[in-house]
C-alpha cells in the first residue's frame, strides 16, 4: 500500500518464517494476528537451537570438557546479548522460564526476605502496600495478591480511564510511605496502552518504593533502555520476541539483585553446600537453579540478532503503521467498539474490540474459518475487561511479519461475521 512508508521489508521477513507458509482452515493462507500470545519464529532462531543440540550441547557451568565449555560460552554469550539489547549490565540479566516466573521471582524474594530477616527494602510487613494497576495481565497481578496474602500487606491499584489509560490523578496519594513496590505494565496486552513508566518510577522512588515493569509486550515491540525507563526490575519472555518457549528474563538493578534472597533453589546457584546449611552464589547465578537452558538461550540470542538486524525503531514504526491502519479500518465498521486509546500515541500494536451482537468467541470462530488467527476472551486481563465494562473481547496483535493487506482481511472478516450472525453493520 503506497501511502504507508515501508519501514520493514515485510516480504523478505515473511520468507524467514516457515510457519507463515502454511495453509489453515479451508486451504486459506494463515493470517497470524496473535503474536501477543506467542510470536512465530524465524528460521535463524530454529537453526540456532537445533545447531546447539547438534554440535554444542554440553551442560553449561559444569563439566571439564570442550562441549561444556562451548555450552557455557553460548549461554553467557546470550546473556551479554540480551543485556546489550536492553542497555543493562551483564550481571543484571537473570534467565528465567518466562516473564511470569520472573515476576514471581521478585515477589517470592520479597516474602523470603521477610521471613528470613533479609534486607529491609525487600521485607513486606502487615500494613505495607503493594501498588499495581487495574490493567495488568494476570502475571503481574496474581503474584502480588499472593505476596500480600503471605505477608499481610495491602494491595492497592491505580484505575483505568474509560479510554484505557491509567488514571494518574491520585498517583501521589496512591504511592505512600508504606508502598514497598509499584508493579505496572510497560505496554498493555489488550489496549496497547503504554503508561508513563518513567514518570511513575520517579514518583515511586521519591517515596522509597521499588518499581517493576512488565515488559512482556514492550521489549519485543519497541526499543527499551533500562536506564532511560527508570524501572528497578523488568520482566519479559523469549517466546513473545521471536525466541523459543522456556526462556525469559528478569532484569534487576545490580545493587538490588545483590541484596535479594533466592526464589527457587538447588544446584547451579550454590556456593558451598553442607548438610547443616548452604551459601549462595552472587547474582545472576543466585537466581538460576538447575542446568541452564542453554539451547533456549541460543535461540533467544538469535532472536535478538534478528531484531537488531531489523532495528527496533523500524519495528516499532512498522507496528505503529499497522495499528493506525487497524484503528482506522475498525472505526469504520458500525457496531464495532475498539477498547483502549483511539490513536497510536503511547499505544502499541494490540487492538481489542467488541462486535455488537456477536460474541468474541463467535467472531474468532468466523475469522478462524477465513484463516485469521486472533485471540478471544479476556486475554489474561479479566479485571481490565470489567473496568472497561466488557464481558470479553476479540484481540488482534501485530508484529514484524504482518502486512497492511492482513489488516484489511481482518476488517473484511469482521464484516463477514456480522452478516453471518445477522448483526447490524
Amino acid at each position, binding site marked *: 500500500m503506497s501511502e504507508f512508508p515501508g519501514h520493514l521489508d515485510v516480504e523478505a521477513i515473511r520468507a524467514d518464517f516457515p510457519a507463515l507458509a502454511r495453509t489453515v482452515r479451508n486451504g486459506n493462507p494463515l493470517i497470524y494476528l496473535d503474536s501477543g500470545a506467542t510470536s512465530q519464529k524465524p528460521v535463524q532462531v530454529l537453526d540456532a537451537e537445533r545447531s546447539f543440540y547438534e554440535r554444542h550441547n554440553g551442560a553449561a557451568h559444569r563439566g571439564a570438557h570442550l562441549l561444556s565449555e562451548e555450552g557455557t560460552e553460548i549461554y553467557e554469550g546470550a546473556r551479554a546479548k540480551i543485556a546489550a539489547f536492553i542497555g543493562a549490565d551483564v550481571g543484571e540479566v537473570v534467565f528465567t522460564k518466562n516473564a511470569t516466573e520472573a515476576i514471581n521471582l521478585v515477589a517470592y524474594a520479597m516474602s523470603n526476605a521477610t521471613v528470613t530477616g533479609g534486607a529491609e527494602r525487600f521485607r513486606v510487613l502487615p500494613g505495607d502496600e503493594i501498588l499495581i494497576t487495574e490493567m495488568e495481565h494476570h502475571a503481574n497481578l496474581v503474584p502480588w495478591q499472593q505476596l500480600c496474602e503471605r505477608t499481610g500487606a495491602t494491595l492497592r491499584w491505580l484505575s483505568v480511564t474509560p479510554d484505557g489509560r491509567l488514571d494518574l490523578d491520585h498517583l501521589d496519594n496512591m504511592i505512600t510511605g508504606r508502598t514497598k513496590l509499584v508493579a505496572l505494565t510497560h505496554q498493555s496486552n489488550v489496549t496497547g496502552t503504554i503508561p508513563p513508566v518513567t514518570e511513575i518510577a520517579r514518583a515511586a522512588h521519591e517515596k522509597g518504593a521499588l518499581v517493576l515493569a512488565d515488559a512482556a509486550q514492550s521489549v519485543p515491540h519497541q526499543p527499551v533502555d533500562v536506564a532511560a525507563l527508570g524501572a528497578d526490575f523488568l520482566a519479559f519472555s523469549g517466546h513473545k520476541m521471536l525466541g523459543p518457549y522456556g526462556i525469559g528474563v528478569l532484569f534487576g538493578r545490580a545493587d538490588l539483585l545483590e541484596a535479594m534472597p533466592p526464589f527457587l533453589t538447588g544446584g547451579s546457584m550454590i556456593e558451598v553446600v553442607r548438610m547443616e546449611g548452604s551459601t549462595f552464589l552472587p547474582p545472576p547465578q543466585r537466581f538460576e537453579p538447575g542446568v541452564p537452558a542453554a539451547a533456549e538461550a541460543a535461540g533467544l540470542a538469535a532472536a535478538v540478532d534478528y531484531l537488531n538486524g531489523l532495528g527496533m525503531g523500524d519495528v516499532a514504526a512498522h507496528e505503529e503503521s499497522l495499528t493506525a491502519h487497524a484503528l482506522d479500518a475498525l472505526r469504520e465498521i458500525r457496531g464495532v467498539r475498539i477498547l483502549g486509546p483511539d490513536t497510536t500515541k503511547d499505544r502499541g500494536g494490540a487492538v481489542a474490540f467488541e462486535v455488537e451482537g456477536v460474541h468474541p468467541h463467535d467472531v474468532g470462530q468466523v475469522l478462524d474459518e477465513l484463516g485469521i488467527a486472533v485471540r478471544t*476472551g479476556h486475554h489474561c486481563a479479566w479485571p481490565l475487561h470489567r473496568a472497561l465494562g466488557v464481558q*470479553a473481547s476479540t484481540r488482534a496483535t501485530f508484529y514484524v511479519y504482518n502486512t497492511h493487506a492482513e489488516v484489511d482481511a481482518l476488517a473484511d472478516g469482521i464484516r463477514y461475521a456480522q452478516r453471518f450472525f445477522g448483526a447490524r453493520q
Partner: protein
Amino acid sequence: MQLESMYQQIILDHYRHPHHKGLREPFDAEVHHVNPVCGDEVTLRVALKDVDGEPVVEDISYDALGCSISQASASVMSDLVIGKPVTEAMTISQAFLDLMQSKGRGTPDEGLLEDAVAFAGVSKYPARIKCALLGWMAWKDATAKALEEER
C-alpha cells in the same frame, strides 16, 4: 464452508431467542460456572419437585453471558430437561457429553437428544466443546446440590 455445519440454524435461533432465560423463584439450588478461557459465564437455578418419590426437574432458570454455542446449548438443554425425572435427564446429559467427545464421528440418538443433535458439529472444534457443555455442567452441579440439600 465448515461454519454452517457447526452453526446450525437451530443453534442460531436459540441464540437469538433463548428459551427459559432469566432467573426465577422458587429454586432449590443455584450455581455459578465460568469458562475462564473465553469469558463465558452462567448463573443457573434448578427447582425440583417430588413425583411419586422421584425427583423431577420442575424449572431451570438461568442468566448467561457468552457465545452463541454456550447460550444456545443452555436454551436447548432447558427445553430438554424441564419436566423430566432427574434420572432420565442425567441419561440425556451423558448422551450429550458423549456426542461432544465424539470428534465428529458420533451418531446421535435424535429420539433422546432432540434439538441437541444440532450441536454435533461442535465436536469437530475442541475449543468450543466446553461452550456447549457449560449449561449442562451447571445444571448437573445445581441438581446435585439440590438433591444433597434435600437429605
